[in-house]
């Protein structure tokens, strides 16, 4: 049975307003990110090292902006709201595409299918970040593991001057 109905196709082209990330680039968040990816590049933390690079000051890891759309302080606590739902998979409420309207695809499981990233600059500690998401395409394909829905979203990440930091095209697989 096809999941990509006319209603689902109607979401293609839907775009969000420009949203601002709740947090600026925190030094502690950069530390935790770098430790978690196990990349202790001195450019992420050392003033002395960064001064010898084109960046001038310490920077966040290249893909740090992609993970900065966090749950606002007064955001909906989905984890508590769905605590008794056996189908709740822990997602929702925050995340890179969370302020796009959800697609009417029921409880199809969600997998990360990959991304195309274009980078223009790194973020410095203390900088703010904004973003704009859009559904670029939604289609389905028969695979060896059954019918899968491919959801393509595009996101622009913008600095405080509106300059492009990164542009990302993501593929999310629903099955």
């Amino acid at each position, binding site marked *: 049975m096809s999941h990509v109905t006319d209603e689902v196709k109607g979401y293609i082209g839907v775009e969000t307003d420009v949203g601002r990330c709740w947090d600026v680039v925190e030094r502690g968040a950069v530390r935790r990110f770098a430790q*978690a990816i196990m990349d202790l590049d001195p450019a992420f933390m050392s003033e002395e090292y960064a001064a010898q690079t084109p960046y001038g000051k310490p920077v966040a890891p290249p893909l740090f902006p992609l993970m900065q759309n966090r749950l606002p302080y007064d955001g909906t606590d989905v984890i508590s709201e769905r605590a008794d739902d*056996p189908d709740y998979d822990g997602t929702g409420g925050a995340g890179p595409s969370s302020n796009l309207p959800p697609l009417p695809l029921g409880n199809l499981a969600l997998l*990360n299918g*990959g991304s195309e990233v274009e980078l223009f600059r790194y973020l410095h500690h203390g900088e703010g970040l904004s973003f704009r998401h859009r559904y670029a395409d939604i289609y389905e394909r028969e695979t060896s593991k059954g019918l899968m829905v491919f959801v393509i979203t595009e996101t622009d990440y913008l600095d405080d001057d509106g300059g492009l930091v990164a542009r990302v095209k993501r593929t999310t697989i629903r099955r």
Partner: protein
Amino acid sequence: MRDNDAARADAPADPRHFEDVSLGERLGDLQKGPFTTPHLMRWSAAIENWHKIHYDRDFTQQHDKLPDLLVNGSLKQNFLLQIVKDWATPHGWPWKVSFQFRAMDVVGSTLFVWGAVKRKIPLRDFGLVELELGIRNQEDRQSTPGKATVALPYREGGPVPYPFVPPSADELAAGEARAEGA
């Protein structure tokens, strides 16, 4: 090179110039793991991602019918960026990186990140180098193929612009034509 390689220099390495790069050249290999549940939990906490398939084994196997806890795709993509960044920067720029998550890597895996030079595109002010990337596990199964395009300075040229200014479509086409004729 192993994960969390602390033997980092106090100053950036000398620039890698476009002329110094050869087709087929391998980037330095990078090992990550073996991955434990705390590795996955540490990443999930760092990015505030509470998707259960990375820490709740019962839900992962019984509800989502997956073989075991998954190494986050959002974590693996950083490994591809790291191998490109460490090879090209700070004097070059990792302009484009793409990757596909074609197979799952589960908890317990050790991942090996690799890269190789596929094509060189000489532009007016700097050169572009196209890379083939990938992640394989301890059983030599490739899970995450990728590609990248990095900008490198010429030996006698100026610095790669930062923030990076991509070449125009016309300039890129001219460079690709020169690459084909080389």
